[in-house]
């Protein structure tokens, strides 16, 4: 279990994380979302022990992480831009990782190499961006970590590779109780693979929980009127978003769906229909509700 207690981090005078309290249960796949510059990468780098929190505590299974090799052996952090030694090959990188991670699994490495067509003895700097990402993931998964931290690591992969990886990770979670934290802007992907999700905004975790619970808490309702009405009539719902097209409104709101529908029906609409809402829309409307990107 990853436990963050009142974690804060500043870079010079800029506060990036402000008293974050957050828990990631063992064996879960956590999606980390948030606007650009929200602090997602910083959070992952603190969990992996790359940087130290200014205050608060970060533990994995109750043990501190920063500069603690025994704990860090069980964690693998794959940054958004994978690192490879200068002029190195995949084989050399394997040797590099094997030095530090006794858990490095040659069988897993071979299996992954069969799934991902990466030439083992070619210089990595000649690879395409997608191949480099695959190379990074091969190495990361071969380490067999208990905690895998992926910072936008799926970006740049083609759909087939993405799917293969998702399956691979899902299997590992089932087999080994691996904990995965994935930060990404691609919420459609997170929705497929993650069972929990957290939203970081304004230096804090503002929303965290099961994907299904979160999705059950946000609703998109289409409401039509036979007469002309103003969008202000939905104000009592504290909507995250209201769109008007003629006399038809599209309202996004949080709360119990029954209560919301009942309240809307009291407005005598000609039409009331609940529409499906995906995670990406929830993120967009939630962030809009917080003023992010609203002016554009």
């Amino acid at each position, binding site marked *: 279990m990853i436990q963050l207690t009142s974690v804060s981090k500043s*870079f010079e005078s800029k506060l990036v994380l402000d008293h974050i309290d957050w828990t990631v249960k063992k064996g879960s796949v956590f999606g980390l979302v948030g606007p650009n510059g929200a602090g997602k990468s910083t959070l992952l*780098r603190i969990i*992996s*022990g*790359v*940087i130290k929190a200014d205050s608060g505590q970060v533990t994995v299974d109750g043990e501190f992480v920063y*500069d603690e*090799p*025994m*704990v*860090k*052996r069980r*964690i*693998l*952090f794959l*940054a*958004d*831009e*994978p*690192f490879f*030694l*200068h002029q190195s090959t995949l084989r*050399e990188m394997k*040797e*590099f990782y094997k*030095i*530090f*991670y006794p858990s490095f699994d040659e069988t897993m490495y071979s299996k992954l190499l069969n799934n991902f067509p990466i030439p083992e003895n070619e210089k990595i700097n000649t690879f395409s961006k997608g191949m480099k990402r695959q190379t990074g993931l091969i190495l990361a998964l071969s380490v067999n970590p208990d905690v895998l931290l992926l910072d936008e690591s799926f970006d740049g992969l083609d759909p087939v590779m993405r799917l293969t990886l998702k399956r691979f990770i899902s299997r590992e979670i089932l087999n080994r109780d691996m904990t995965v934290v994935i930060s990404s802007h691609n919420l459609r992907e997170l929705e497929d693979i993650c069972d929990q999700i957290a939203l970081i905004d304004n230096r804090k975790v503002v929303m965290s929980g099961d994907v299904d619970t979160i999705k059950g808490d946000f609703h998109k309702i289409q409401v039509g009127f036979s007469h002309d009405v103003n969008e202000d009539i939905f104000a009592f719902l504290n909507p995250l978003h209201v769109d008007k097209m003629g006399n038809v409104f599209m309202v996004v709101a949080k709360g119990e769906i029954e209560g919301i529908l009942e309240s809307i029906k009291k407005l005598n609409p000609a039409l009331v229909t609940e529409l499906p809402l995906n995670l990406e829309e929830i993120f967009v409307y939630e962030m809009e509700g917080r003023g992010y990107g609203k002016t554009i």
Partner: protein
Amino acid sequence: MAKLFSFRINGAYLRFLLKRNSRFMILTGIAMTVLFPILAFTNYLIDGSYNQFVFTTGRVFILILLVLSIFIVPFLLFSYLNSKKNLDVYHALPIKRRDLYFTTLLGAFAIILIPYTLVFIIGNVYYFSVIPDVDTILLIKQYYFSVALTLSIVTPILFAMMNTGTGVDGLLYGLLLHIIPSILYGAYVTFGSAVLLGFSVADPSLFLLYASPIWAIFELTFNTTRIFPNPMLISLYWIAFGLITSWVVLYFYQIRRSEKAEEPFTNKWFFPVISSFFTFIVQFFLYSAFITLSGRGLDFRTLIFPFFLTFVMYLILDVIANRGFKHLIRGIINFAIIGALSLGTFTFGTLFDGFGYITRVPDASNVEKVELEYYDPYGYLYQSYYYDQTTFPVQTMYTDAEDIETIINTHKIILEGFKAIDYKKWDGYTELTSTPRTDLDSSLFQQSSNIRIVYYLNSGAKIARSYTVPFGWTTDLLNLVNSENVFKNRYPMLANPDAVVRNTVFEIFDPLMSNAVTLSGKVNFKLFASAYKSDYLSLNEQQHNQPDTPILGIINLTSCTSTDMCVTRGIPIDARYTQTLSLLASSGVTLPALTTLESIPFIILPDATNEKAPFFHIQSLFGNTDFYFQEYYDESKPGPTEAGTVDYVEIPQERIAELLPYIRINAISKKAIGVLIVKTSVVLNERNTPHIYYLLDEAALPLLQQWRSEFEVKRDNFSNILMKVE
């Protein structure tokens, strides 16, 4: 604290680093091989023989390459510090940061030293096999010094890397940290030379030996004659420095703001501190250098140009640091503060006599001993031949209270002399005037003397001062003539006969060098050295400087300390050298008599009616030059205006013996009398002139007066007379 010193080397990672950098090691090894053993072999192919020099040159070359690789390797191994994504990986690795740091540092150490060690061994095995009598201990020491100082050169570069975010900035400031000690020393020396009267450093390389590891690695490895400070202690000092700075660097490594990687500086204080200090000392250096070069003395207008020159330099550093001009105004303000500080310090240091540096003369009671280097224009007290000094290194250390008092008094006289002329306005070149302090003729005093005094105080401190002054200000030092130190300088082989392996020439001449008798095989050299030294030291300064006894003979002695290190001296004896004469007599040596001279002897006659006329006042067998004829001519005195001419007579060979009772040598005359010039083919020292000048005692005046009427008196300038003697 214990945690600070506990770390573990990750052997697997160390091996990985060595394997990854094997190509660099091979390249370095090839370059070193080319410049050491292959260079020696090539030289052999050309010359057909081996010499030590080419092997020494090879060792210098591989040490230069070692230093170069010290600058390169940290950037190969610690390059991950300059990339955010690399840092993310390295610092996420399950290894403690201190372990990662020390393992990488050890890797750097190994990558630097493995090729050097291999080539050093190969080159020197080759050296052993072709050069006889190799000093093995010296080679081991050289290897030890080069290895011992490697860490101390690496750590300043690492320190720069820990405070910068890019490789370029790391390299730039690594270089800057290494050259700062040299510039600091240069600033100190130029400031002292330009502004501080009497400025001198006790050991010119001492500061850099302790401040610059690059200087020290070359100095310790190749200056094989250094005995103080002890090279081993200096190497231990640098090992300690390397270890301490390794931990300082570790501290900065652990607090390094990795999020600022790829930016010029990860530590916001690094650039202001380093660039300000660097600019400050460069300003100081340039102020002093421009004052010296201008030759205008202390003129503050001279400082304007270096001020603005450093302004441009600082702005360039600022623009590089900020990657643009966005902080230009702040840079200008910073520079204004630095400039004000440096100008203020420079001005105060100058106006207040270097805060007492100039006027300080230690009290005799505080002085344990004094080292004196003194080169008067006549070479009367000291030799200045470098070659002689190399053959017989002489340290002139005065411990006698009376001698110390004499030196301190001379120091005070010098300061009084400078005070009288307002030395701050003195440009360092214009001839200083002097008031004669004795009854010797004033013309004698205008020649320059170089004097350097190093006081060793009871407290252990040293005070060194150096001056170029008129000879007249230093004539008190002539009283040191009967000291053992002067004897050591005049006759180093007699002062240290144990160092002499053989005498290639050991003979005695008659007083005018016309006839010689060998002493080799007749006179025991060590007994001779002892007897002569005893005789010499028994004479007081008056007896040395104004001898009243004619010389009886001149011993020609060439002593060698090795195959090609020899020194020649002409050693006069007269009746006062009783022990020497006794030894010669007991050894069966009869003093040779005067025979025919090689050329016609000339006598320069004193001209009592012409005060302007130049004359010889001082005579020595030891000086670099026997006299400065033209300078003696004194326009301010009454007499004929025909400058540089003297009266002389040519004496027939058969009449010259009449002068023998009056000839003196190594003497200073109280007044103008007469001089006998003869030519000799015997080379008594490294003088170029074949002439010997004998001063004639006052008692010779009646005889000279007689000859004035007996022989034709001619008048000519001195160089023409010398040509006639030829």
